[in-house]
């Protein structure tokens, strides 16, 4: 049901520009107002969320240690998985953010008769997640050619690299294949694995379908429903130079693509997609395991009621004296 609701919402998001920009012809609204509003909501929303997290305190160093601590000279410590220095933390975070190191550890439990438990390697999720995120990132960068003139060389190189197979006209991008495959995998595991189906919310399916819609509309535009690319670039350059124009000859499919991207931008800061920002702020990963070496300050540390030695001895003094245990007050 959750999946169905999400699908219906995404389909509605496709219909809106079809009607608005297509049938009704409100090009200024869909080509200029919506993307601008979406961009502003995204940027301000993202900043607000990160600042909001930042306003909460970090009272303790609760690093998850995944390797040997810094110890004696004869013990090799795990500088990456149990960092005691800032550099170690930076490296750990880089591997976490770029290569999904924790996910790479994933195992799958199997219970056989006996009972016998085994823990098999389970790297598909890691591969699927990495394929999705890396493709998304490359596609995003590749799109910079629509927002720059002249297009800087690195963007051109990336474009060449992504189309290195030289298959089809126009040439096929590797990332398009990869992101579609990854999205399909991420969706299928949610509906096929009963555990995954059980934990999945509508807000887990919605971004999958939305991004699916963005990719499909992009692919359609490039290979099947030809759009005047010169006109599109004229429009995107207009947007980025704050001098928006609406050229003729832009097919409605482009408005669909743009509207879905706008929807993603608006949705992003208020959703689980904020893991993009949150992963950097996760205290179990971004802190060094060094609170036995260096004092960490808890900003809200406050005095508490304790049972003092004096109160305690008052209670036990006689028994202690009888047992021959030293006391403060005779």
């Amino acid at each position, binding site marked *: 049901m959750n999946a169905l609701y999400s699908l219906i919402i995404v389909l509605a998001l496709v219909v809106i520009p079809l009607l608005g920009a297509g049938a009704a012809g409100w090009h200024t609204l869909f080509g200029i107002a919506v993307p601008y509003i979406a961009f502003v909501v995204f940027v301000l929303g993202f900043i607000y969320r990160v600042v909001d997290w930042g306003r909460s305190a970090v009272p303790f160093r609760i*690093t998850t240690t995944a390797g040997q601590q810094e110890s004696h000279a004869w013990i090799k410590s795990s500088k990456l998985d149990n960092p005691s220095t800032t550099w170690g933390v930076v490296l750990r975070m880089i591997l976490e953010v770029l290569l999904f190191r924790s*996910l790479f550890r994933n195992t799958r439990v199997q219970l056989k008769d006996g009972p016998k438990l085994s823990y098999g390697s389970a790297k598909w999720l890691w591969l699927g997640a990495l394929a999705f995120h890396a493709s998304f990132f490359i596609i995003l960068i590749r799109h910079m050619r629509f927002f720059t003139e002249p297009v800087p060389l690195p963007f051109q190189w990336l474009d060449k690299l992504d189309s290195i197979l030289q298959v089809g006209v126009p040439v096929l991008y590797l990332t398009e294949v990869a992101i579609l495959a990854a999205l399909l995998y991420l969706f299928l595991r949610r509906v096929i694995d009963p555990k995954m189906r059980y*934990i999945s*919310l509508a807000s887990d399916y919605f971004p999958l379908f939305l991004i699916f819609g963005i990719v499909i509309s992009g692919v359609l535009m490039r290979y099947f429903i030809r759009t005047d690319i010169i006109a599109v670039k004229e429009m995107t350059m207009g947007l980025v130079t704050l001098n928006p124009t609406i050229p003729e000859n832009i097919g409605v499919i482009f408005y669909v693509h743009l509207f879905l991207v706008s929807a993603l931008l608006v949705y992003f800061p208020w959703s689980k997609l904020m893991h993009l920002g*949150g992963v950097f702020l996760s205290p179990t990963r971004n802190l060094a395991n060094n609170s036995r070496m260096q004092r960490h300050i808890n900003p809200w*540390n406050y005095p508490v009621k304790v049972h003092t030695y004096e109160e305690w001895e008052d209670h036990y003094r006689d028994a202690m004296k009888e*047992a021959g245990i*030293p006391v403060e007050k005779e």
Partner: protein
Amino acid sequence: MSKLPSSDTLAATIDYHPPRKSWMQVQPEFRPGTWSYPANPKNLKIMDFPNPREWSPTDDDWKLPENWQEIIYEGFKDRLKKYRSLKVFMDICVRCGACADKCHYFIGSGDPKNMPVLRAELLRSIYRKDFTTVGKILCSLSGSRSLTEDVIKEWFLYFYQCSECRRCSLFCPYGIDTAEVTMMGRELLNLLGLNINWVMEPVANCFRVGNHLGIPPHTFKEIVDFMCEDIEEVSGVKVEPPLNKKGAEILFVTPSGDYFADPGTYTFMGYLMLFHELGLDYTMSTYASEGGNFGLFTSAEAMKRLNAKIYAEAKRLGVKWILGGECGHMWRVINQYMDTMNGPADFLEVPRNPLTGTVFNNARATKMVHITEFTDDLIQHGILNFDPSRNDDLVVTYHDSCNPSRAMGLFEEPRNVIKSVCNHFYEMPIQTIREQTFCCGSGSGLNNEEFMEMRMRGGMPRANAVKHVHDTYGVNMLSCICAIDRAAFPPLMEYWVPEVDVCGVHELVANALVMRGEKERELNLRSEPLPGKEG
């Protein structure tokens, strides 16, 4: 206490397929063996905790304070400000499912709400409703729900079915730590007077008497004297451990489980023999007679109130540094909380081993050293003489306790020690040790009798790995560095792998330790004949 099914029957009930109904529609079920008894009101009064009363989870009416919803709302809000961890963990989970089959309680029960992701969703669903705009508008579509008494009951059931072992946090791509979520959940429950006695009695005892088990100073001394007699009987050496000795160099603090029941007591005897052999200038305290800290399983404030004694006593006695015994969660508190809560310990010196000159730089702020760090240092410097053949009847494996593993990273030190004192040592499978270690199933205050079924379920992954090395290498001794382990493993082994016994690392050390002036040893610390002396 409910009747425990046989291990085969229990294993046959495990099914990893969740029910058809959405989890929000499944009501919590208080089946005997899966929940712990509520706290005795007298223990709450000792700690000045709210809402002390008699109640039971099986009652319809939990006698919550009238404004309980407001209390939870305000408590939640307060903690979102105080803990970035909570706020971030509430916001960024994508429900990728990587954690789902990492929890020992899920593996052993198949109850989907024991999947770490769902355990956190129990809290998250309320967070979304009360603290996010989207959640308020979209309701169940965004995974939010209203706070009802049933939600509170569900929290109580499942936050006391989590041992805060942090295994899931290892696999989470964002490091979401269910221990942190459970700790916050328990703090909120505590605001309503919902706590379990197996946590609150140790907390109250520790606060009032000085240790979890409520052993008063004179009884502590008696116990120690008994142990000294046993040591003399086994080794012929008379040890005289100092209590509350002012001006000693080192304060030694260990969990009270070590001097309360077997097999922990043998570990405690091991410490005493080691310190005697070294001629260490140390003292124990009858005021700070607890290393463990069940406050960790209650609230940050309770943890601080109990932990404060250690530094206070170190200051009163005028010691230079502190040595800590074999305990699991105690070391999470020392490594990640102690100095922050109750420091700075500027009245102490950076710990330095008086026998080797080694400076324990990794403890330079907190000034507290783990006993296996200490013993490993002695061994590396050749200070100790061992006869490992005295442990030759033992085929040993080692259980990494959750907290020293995932909240500290203490892996090589205990292994170095064990390998120096035992000839037969075998590791369990790699997915079940070191940072991936499995909980004993009884951590975080859940090692009570009435919770036995869940303990056996949660301990199954650990027991299963022990069974593997038992079948493969003939392992007959499970060593560990945790007092809860030493209390929880004997029944767990009895249930799943009856041929395997349990010991602390310093029991093995003391068995192998060749002491000056000792008689020819015939018996181990358990007063059983040593290998070759059975005649």
